[in-house]
């Protein structure tokens, strides 16, 4: 059978395309490397979910090679040796199953970073070929179709919106949210209720949030979280036009000079199959999408598919920034407040964007977003933090520390999201000497960061610390790092108007091929100072519109 569209991957960049095309009556095939789970399969099992390779590949079977700078030399280390896992959820729905669901839109200036703030030496900053205005209708669509809860409040960096407010009211909030608001008032900061891809009540087949308190890192057992699987693929399957083949790893795309004609994949049983389609969409998450194109080299594309410009894999970006925390001790609070603080379940749902633009050396620069949350309740990882007191400790000393960590206080945290400036030192290539379980070269990822990222992160961290101090937290600290958060990856196939400096055109079609699109975060030339998922969803809906129009026009003619 020849499909209208074959999509590689099933996460936030893939599912909107599958959803829209299946609803428009086209035959869609999704090829997903991982298994197909449903909400009934997800449990709060810290060992299974967070400490073992259950929803991600075991690293000796599939891995990456990470190139880090050691004494001015780039040294590559396979992740099976380092344990630094760059997989983020290899199941139907991808890493969106495991997101926390902080949903922020990018701001209009994020689309014209170079024009607005100028060049930064050593960074490959460019303007996007589309504007916020082009993407706004799709941000709006995500709010309604995927489901975003929240409340719009005015603040200096509120982006223009076509809908007055979110379609879903905010999820229940923790008592600390009101403490946060009071502290913001004192400091003159603008407290923002964080929009969240979590439904506060049941809608269709999706139940409302159960407030188990373990959102990030876990698959959602109620279906409230707007994962690509729950919010889009399950609905698209009902059209009868979508086929999902799980446990199928796409090894290579085959093309002639102008068109991709088939995808070669390996089934769970090790069978090699090929499938044909009119259009091909790659959305395997940024690093793996670049890897697939690089592994698909042929005589027309000796450097990899769509890579005669040698741009595939270049300008990979992550989210820069870092995190921090402060402690609230129960003994410092009255009994009512202490009990309120102990409650597990309701969300903090608070962010600050007052420093989305800031001044460094009397010049305006892009700043970032601060999201506030409690320390993740995962017990084993919290216990591990008690293991060191300068030196490693055990016995009664360890037990005292465990009791202290768990029973005397609650840790209030923040995460900072800034632009990771694209540079020549952050890219994806292939490591021909390290192969995966199917014999394919793995992705080699160089992770160099621009020093400017640290300056921005540190400046914003001071503001977050100031707020925690106002709230009465103790032992406040922050850590801004140039180490990439592996779950926040984008770029590698940036879009643009010039085929010499970009892989994709403004509709995310490969410049060099007529029927190849990349619809995950790979298209992003810069990442904005927010988590990427909402933008990836929105852009994939935009690409889906282009594909529906294209296929409809051909059908009609």
């Amino acid at each position: 059978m020849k499909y209208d569209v074959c999509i590689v991957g099933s996460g936030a960049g893939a599912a909107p395309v599958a959803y829209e095309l299946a609803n428009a009556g086209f035959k869609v095939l999704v090829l997903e490397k991982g298994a197909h789970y449903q909400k009934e399969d997800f449990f709060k099992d810290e060992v299974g979910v967070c400490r073992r390779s259950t929803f991600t590949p075991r690293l000796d079977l599939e891995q990456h090679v990470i190139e880090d700078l050691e004494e001015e030399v780039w040294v590559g280390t396979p992740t099976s040796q380092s344990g630094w896992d760059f997989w983020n959820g290899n199941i139907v729905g991808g890493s969106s199953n495991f997101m926390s669901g902080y949903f922020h839109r990018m701001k209009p200036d994020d689309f014209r970073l170079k024009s607005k703030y100028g060049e930064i030496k050593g960074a490959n900053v460019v303007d996007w070929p589309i504007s916020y205005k082009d993407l706004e209708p799709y941000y709006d669509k995500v709010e309604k179709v995927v489901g975003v809860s929240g409340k719009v409040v005015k603040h200096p960096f509120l982006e223009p919106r076509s809908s007055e407010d979110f379609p879903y009211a905010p999820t229940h909030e923790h008592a600390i949210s009101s403490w946060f608001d009071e502290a913001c008032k004192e400091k003159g900061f603008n407290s923002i209720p964080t929009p969240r891809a979590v439904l506060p009540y049941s809608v269709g087949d999706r139940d409302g949030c159960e407030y188990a308190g373990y959102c990030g890192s876990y698959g959602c057992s109620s279906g409230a979280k707007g994962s690509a699987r729950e919010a889009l693929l399950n609905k698209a399957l009902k059209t009868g036009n979508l086929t999902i083949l799980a446990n199928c790893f796409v090894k290579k795309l085959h093309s002639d000079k102008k068109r991709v004609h088939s995808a070669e994949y390996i089934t769970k049983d090790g069978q090699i199959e090929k499938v044909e389609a009119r259009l091909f969409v790659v959305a395997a998450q940024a690093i793996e999408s670049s890897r697939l194109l690089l592994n698909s080299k042929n005589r027309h594309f000796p450097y990899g598919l769509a890579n005669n410009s040698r741009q595939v894999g270049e300008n990979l970006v992550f989210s820069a920034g870092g995190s921090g925390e402060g402690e609230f001790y129960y003994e410092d609070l009255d009994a009512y407040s202490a009990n309120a603080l102990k409650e597990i379940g309701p969300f903090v749902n608070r962010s600050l964007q007052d420093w989305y633009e800031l001044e460094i050396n009397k010049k305006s620069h892009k700043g970032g977003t601060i999201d506030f949350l409690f320390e993740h309740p995962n017990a084993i990882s919290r216990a591990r933090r008690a293991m060191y007191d300068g030196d490693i400790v055990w016995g009664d000393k360890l037990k005292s520390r465990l009791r202290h960590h768990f029973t005397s206080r609650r840790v209030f945290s923040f995460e900072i999201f800034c632009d990771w400036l694209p540079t020549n030192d952050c890219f994806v290539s292939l490591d021909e000497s390290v192969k995966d379980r199917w014999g394919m070269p793995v992705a080699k990822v160089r992770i160099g960061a621009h020093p400017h990222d640290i300056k921005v992160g540190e400046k914003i961290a001071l503001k977050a610390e100031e707020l925690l101090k106002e709230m009465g937290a103790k032992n406040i600290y922050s850590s801004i790092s140039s180490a990439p958060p592996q779950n926040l990856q984008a770029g590698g196939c940036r879009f643009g108007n010039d085929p010499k400096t970009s892989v994709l055109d403004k509709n995310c079609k490969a410049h060099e091929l007529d029927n190849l699109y990349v619809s995950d975060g790979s298209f992003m030339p810069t990442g904005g100072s927010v988590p990427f998922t909402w933008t990836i969803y929105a852009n994939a809906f935009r690409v889906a519109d282009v594909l529906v129009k294209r296929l409809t026009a051909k059908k009609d003619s």
Partner: protein
Amino acid sequence: MIKYKHNSKGHDLKQNTLARRAFLGTSFLLGAATLYWFNQKDKKVRLYANETQVLLHSAYHLFAHSELGLGAKDIHIASYLAFVLKDKRIMKSDRDYFLKGAYWLEESAFETYDSSFLNLSYDQKERLFQNISKERWGRNYIHTTLGYIFEALLSAPIYGSNIDGIGWKWLEHNPGFPQPQFIEEITYEV
């Protein structure tokens, strides 16, 4: 939620990498002797059992029952370690390295006290752990063992430890819901 290097599965990555490199060098030197022992069918069984016993008794010492609370025996660490040693989701190289740590601890016990670790007094064991914690392999072994103790203490009871949530109760921890009722079959090839 941001995933960072040092949050990833909780490993001390730099330390692990360096230690593994050190281990590769050491195992090359030990290779012939080690292989000889491992290739002898009857010796292999004895050697393996000895290492698992050393692991178990390491856990008993590092997290002994006391006035301050639960100990490794209380949380059924033996069941949990048995699960860990057959869990296919853990890389074989990591399991081997863990067992190698026990082997080196036993070796250190003989070097220091001319006795198996299992036969040492509490104070001798304590001094031995203090000594090996000054070495990279020793810190790694203690780190890994404590990591599995924490898992036994705080994981879902389906894994054979933390029966009736005894560890959760001790630390007043809310484990969330739903909790798993069975261990999913893992089909990785080994």
